[in-house]
């Protein structure tokens, strides 16, 4: 009897819970519908301006200050749209935030992607073409390859905002103390790292942690030998001599014990050099304003041999519009992008005052000439590095994993050749299965 009673109550309890869950579930669906179709209310613009949401990764103080200032100005300049923005730290932005926002139909109307992640978004078809705002005239003002990574099937989906370049930074005082000139060849780089290395600081720091940034800084070492990671028809070329040479160089440097084995943070952070943890560091143009030119110098990445070519890589952020947004939100997003990011003065201020990066737009480079030559380090990037830069390879998630694993394997667990052969096989298999092609 007791058991029957209990069973009855357990059953009732479970049905109550299930009913409760259904109610909650329905409420959830309701709110999701509202989210997805938020435009149904807002697009009418009855109660006020259409809300436009803009997500990016510009979390440095000057960058957010710039955005706050101009977004406020835009909002005050008209009453049809109201833009809000959210700057999310890079690590979270590209991993957990943006993808899950799209997965749950809560994508921002405007967002930004670097070449490292843009392929996923373009392949998934979640972006709105921007051909109507990026007119022929505007397009002509950009560099030739500016729209390569943001184009699909004859349409332009993204507006290239900036271009970041990679070079070698060094501590002038430490090099002078040891009577060493900044290295210009791979051999000199190895010798300098050995001569400069001490117990307190490493001779040289490059990225040893797996990831997008490691791949980004690895590419130029292949390119400067005249090699590529992919053939002209877009297929894997990872076991080529040039890739193996570049892997061997990195491996030799790490094995020598003269490099920073545990940088403790991303090598994209110039503070490893400025905190005195290393004598030389691979870093980029974004640090020009953060490294005092009196104390720190910049040279192009060392060439394979004397008289050889250097190379660099250029990567940057592109502004995109989500096609999950309503027509009115898309119109608002485009209006805002045209107002803010197609204005030469705004872009110049952003690229040269809020931060330091190169625009792919010729008129911005001309307008910002003073800043691009404001100190010796800036001049090195402007005169010597920019002309040698090739665009970052826009890989898919799986392809990125194969390249990253190749670099890690070569650094830690096998010979450069073995790592390259395995990666070549994996990449070809993946490309054949998926039909993907990559260039660079």
């Amino acid at each position, binding site marked *: 009897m*007791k058991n029957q*009673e*209990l069973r009855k*109550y357990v059953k*009732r*309890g479970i049905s*109550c*819970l299930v009913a*409760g*869950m259904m109610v*909650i579930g329905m409420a959830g669906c309701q709110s999701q519908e509202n989210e997805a179709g938020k435009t149904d209310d807002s697009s009418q613009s009855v109660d006020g301006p259409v809300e436009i949401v803009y997500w990016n990764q510009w979390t440095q103080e000057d960058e957010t200050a710039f955005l706050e200032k101009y977004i406020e100005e835009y909002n005050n300049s008209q009453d049809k749209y109201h833009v809000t923005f959210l700057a999310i730290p890079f690590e979270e932005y590209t*991993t*957990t935030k943006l*993808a*899950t926002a*799209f*997965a749950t139909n809560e994508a921002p109307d405007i967002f930004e992607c670097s070449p490292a992640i843009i392929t*996923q*978004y373009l*392949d*998934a*078809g*979640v972006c709105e073409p921007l051909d109507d705002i990026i007119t022929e005239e505007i397009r002509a003002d950009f560099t030739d390859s500016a729209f390569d990574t943001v184009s699909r099937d004859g349409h332009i989906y993204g507006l290239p905002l900036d271009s970041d370049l990679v070079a070698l930074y060094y501590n002038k005082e430490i090099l002078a103390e040891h009577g060493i000139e900044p290295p210009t060849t791979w051999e000199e780089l190895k010798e300098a790292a050995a001569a400069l290395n001490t*117990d*307190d*600081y*490493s001779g040289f720091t490059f990225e*040893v*942690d*797996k*990831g997008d940034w490691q791949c980004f800084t690895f590419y130029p070492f292949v390119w400067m030998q005249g090699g590529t990671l992919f053939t002209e028809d877009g297929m894997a070329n990872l076991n080529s001599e040039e890739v193996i040479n570049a892997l061997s160089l990195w491996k030799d440097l790490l094995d020598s014990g003269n490099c*920073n*084995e*545990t940088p*403790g943070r991303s090598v994209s952070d110039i503070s490893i050099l400025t905190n005195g*943890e290393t004598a030389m560091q691979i870093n980029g143009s974004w640090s020009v304003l953060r490294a005092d030119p009196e104390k720190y110098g910049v040279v192009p990445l060392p060439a394979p041999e004397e008289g050889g070519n250097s190379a660099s890589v250029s990567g940057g952020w592109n502004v995109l519009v989500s096609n999950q947004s309503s027509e009115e939100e898309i119109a608002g997003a485009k209006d805002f992008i045209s107002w803010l990011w197609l204005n030469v003065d705004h872009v110049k201020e952003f690229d040269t005052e809020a931060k330091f990066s190169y625009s792919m737009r010729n008129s911005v480079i001309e307008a910002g000439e003073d800043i691009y030559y404001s100190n010796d380090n800036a001049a090195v990037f402007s005169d010597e590095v920019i002309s040698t830069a090739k665009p970052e390879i826009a890989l898919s*998630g*799986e392809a*990125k*994993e194969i390249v990253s*694993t190749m670099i*890690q*394997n070569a*650094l*830690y*667990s096998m010979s450069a050749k073995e790592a390259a052969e395995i990666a070549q096989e994996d990449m070809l298999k993946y490309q054949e299965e998926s039909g993907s092609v990559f260039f660079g």
Partner: protein
Amino acid sequence: MKKKKQRRIKKEALTAYLMIAPEMILMLIFIFIPIIYALYISLFDWNALGTKTFAGLDNYSHMLDDATFWGSLFTTVKYAVIYVAAVYILSLAAAVFVNSIRGNRRQQACRVAIYLPNTISTIVAATLWSFLFNSRNGYINRIVELFGGERQLFLGSSSQALICVAVVGIWIAFGYNMIIFLSALKDVPAEYYEAARIDGANAVQRFFKITFPLIKGTSIFILITTLIASFQVFDQIRVMTSGGPAGATEVTVYYIFQLAFEQYRFGYASAIAVALSLIIMVVTVVQMKLLKFK
């Protein structure tokens, strides 16, 4: 009379259900529904951005051929062995030591000191230990060099990184487990020890003949919970090594994270998550059976 009793049972049951309802609802929303949803997603090829393509059991069959998955599982097991053994031995030793301290104040101070790391978030602890393990300026290497040892690479070495990562987990967890052991030790009647002492048993004999058998239930509880925790390690790996060098610390949970949030392969990541849950479940059941947990 009977009706009255029935009504009382009814009322009591209702109160009980109402009391556990909030917890149950939260568990449903945040635990059971996501698990079921993960199971559902695992049957699809989905990059979170586009539409889901039904893939049946493809993700599961792919898992069988995926060397990285098996490698990550092996790394997880290695981590579990280091972590569970260390947490168990250290927390038991600490509990016995603290229990033997005479004087309430001193005992309390010692307990707090050992428990303290447990109050720190894993991210903060991992960052802190990254500095300590730094191969050049880290204090640990300074101490090693002081004793004439050679500079170690720690997080930069494929053979040492997993141990370094485990040290952080152990440092955080053993104080908490010590408290659980301590409460079990306090429940062992003092008379048993007195009787054993009269019979001439020494400290080691007393520990293995009295303490150890009487705290068996707690021991098993700690072994099971630490094993489950070890299979779920993520935070310190994210902060300290990002799974490197060369995958030396790439445990299965970290691999799932990489697949989902770096490669956007949510379907495949979910399939591995489901497999990992099953593995944890099976290991726990086997462990309970072996240790005769009641």
